[in-house]
């Protein structure tokens, strides 16, 4: 039986880990992801799960343990944030290169310097070339749902690629929310048994993984790796639909909120979508044709689907919770503009950076953005393509 409970994002992930009971959990505590790992350690100590819990000396080592355990043939998970993900960075590429279906919960937090423990997306955006699938969650319910689906996606024979499920630090990780936890057996059944492809522990078929690879094979191995993430869209879609059938909450690449006859829209990810939806409702009540697109899957980037939806609009504001210093705009903006390049009719697109280091974003700021979009839609002119929201300028 599913049950309605009050949990925060971290507790919801810990619940999912308890239900899935992975073979190995290797993690190093870091704010704001600590309570995930702490709770799982308690579950192991209490005998609720029989996962091998490894607490190494750093996040670099935590990911290394995950890689070793996954290469051995285990179902493996971890959790981290910010500097923790940054210290794992070298090993992220190795997990993906070895096609190991590790699942990681990443609690988004700003990167130093200066030190800040609050939420923004600079950590996972910085890992956007690492080869991992990236799924962003609006709230604790989505974090829980996405984390469960992540195992199915990562472990699918056509994918075999690691997945990170992210949600905003403190705003989601530490705020209590009324949500649904599904029945233990139903979750176990949905996730299913894991069957590794080339486990190192299969001593009858000895292999080497990650060997030295000179100019004669590296290129082929890398393109072979890319096939996994290129196969992911079909699987992400199937798993999202099946999850919907079983549990009543269906997932795709992005959520379209009141987009049917929208002329202008905001595109963003994660927790700010909640506030944005309220603003959309207010403006819709006034008869304005505004909508919202909440991107769920950033890697693989659903460029064609997204471009198709955006190309029908007059003006779009892409809201990034990260920067790409020296680039012409933040990451989501750049990839969105690029995706629309070949369309003869394109909306005007502007970019706002918001919420760095956990800075609040409120309905007032969304109103400001929609006012700007309406002006652009009516005049056809963009005076400034890039700006900041709620910054002291």
């Amino acid at each position, binding site marked *: 039986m599913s049950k309605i409970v009050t949990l925060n994002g971290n507790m919801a992930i810990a619940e999912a880990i308890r239900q899935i009971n992975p073979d190995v959990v290797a993690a190093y505590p870091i704010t704001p992801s600590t309570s995930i790992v702490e709770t799982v350690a308690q579950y192991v100590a209490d005998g609720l799960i029989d996962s091998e819990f490894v607490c190494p000396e750093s996040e670099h080592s935590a990911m290394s343990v995950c890689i070793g355990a996954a290469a051995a043939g285990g179902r493996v998970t971890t959790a981290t944030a910010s500097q923790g993900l940054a210290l794992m960075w070298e090993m992220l590429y190795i997990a993906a*290169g070895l*096609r*190991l279906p590790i699942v990681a919960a990443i609690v988004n937090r700003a990167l130093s310097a200066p030190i800040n423990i609050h939420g923004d997306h600079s950590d996972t955006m910085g890992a956007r070339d690492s080869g991992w699938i990236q799924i962003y969650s609006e709230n604790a319910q989505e974090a829980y749902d996405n984390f469960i689906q992540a195992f199915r996606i990562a472990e699918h024979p056509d994918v075999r690629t690691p997945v990170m499920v992210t949600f905003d630090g403190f705003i989601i990780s530490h705020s209590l929310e009324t949500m649904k936890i599904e029945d233990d057996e139903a979750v176990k059944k949905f996730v299913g048994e894991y069957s*590794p492809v*080339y*486990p190192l522990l299969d001593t009858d*078929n000895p292999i*080497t993984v990650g060997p030295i690879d000179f100019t004669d094979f590296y290129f*082929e191995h890398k393109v072979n790796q890319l096939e996994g993430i290129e196969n992911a869209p079909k699987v992400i879609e199937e798993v999202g639909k099946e999850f919907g059938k079983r549990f009543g909450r269906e997932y795709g690449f992005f959520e379209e909120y009141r987009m049917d006859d929208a002329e202008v829209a905001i595109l963003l990810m994660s927790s700010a979508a909640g506030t944005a939806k309220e603003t959309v409702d207010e403006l819709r009540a006034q008869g304005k044709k505004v909508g919202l697109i909440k991107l769920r899957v950033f890697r693989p980037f659903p460029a064609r689907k997204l471009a198709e939806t955006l190309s029908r609009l007059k003006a779009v504001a892409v809201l990034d919770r990260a920067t790409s210093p020296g680039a012409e705009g933040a990451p989501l903006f750049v990839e969105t503009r690029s995706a629309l390049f070949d369309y003869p009719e394109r909306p005007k697109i502007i970019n706002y950076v918001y919420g760095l280091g956990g800075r609040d974003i409120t309905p007032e700021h969304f109103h400001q953005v929609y006012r700007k979009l309406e002006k652009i839609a009516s005049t056809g002119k963009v005076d400034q393509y890039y700006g900041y929201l709620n910054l002291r300028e």
Partner: protein
Amino acid sequence: MKKAKTLEELKNATWKELPIGTVNPDPANSLKNFTGTWRSGKKPIFKKDTCIHCLFCWVYCPDMAIIVKDGKVLGINYDYCKGCGICEVECPTKPKSIEMVKEEVTLS
């Protein structure tokens, strides 16, 4: 549990034909990689008369160039000797039981 193709089968393979995850299906294939071809300038000579079979040379050798059987050093396997000379440095006997000597190399 998938049976991977052998390295021989994978020679000149396209990216589509490779096993996923950089899996190398050929265990212990470093045996086929003759690192001795890297050697230049000097090679070790084993002198069995003074050898006390302490196996220091075997322990320190970064490759598999010291031939040992039943706890006894039998000689050098030049297929895997890169000529680094650590065996000579670490040999504790006086005179040394391994000596690095000049080697003429013909570039192929």
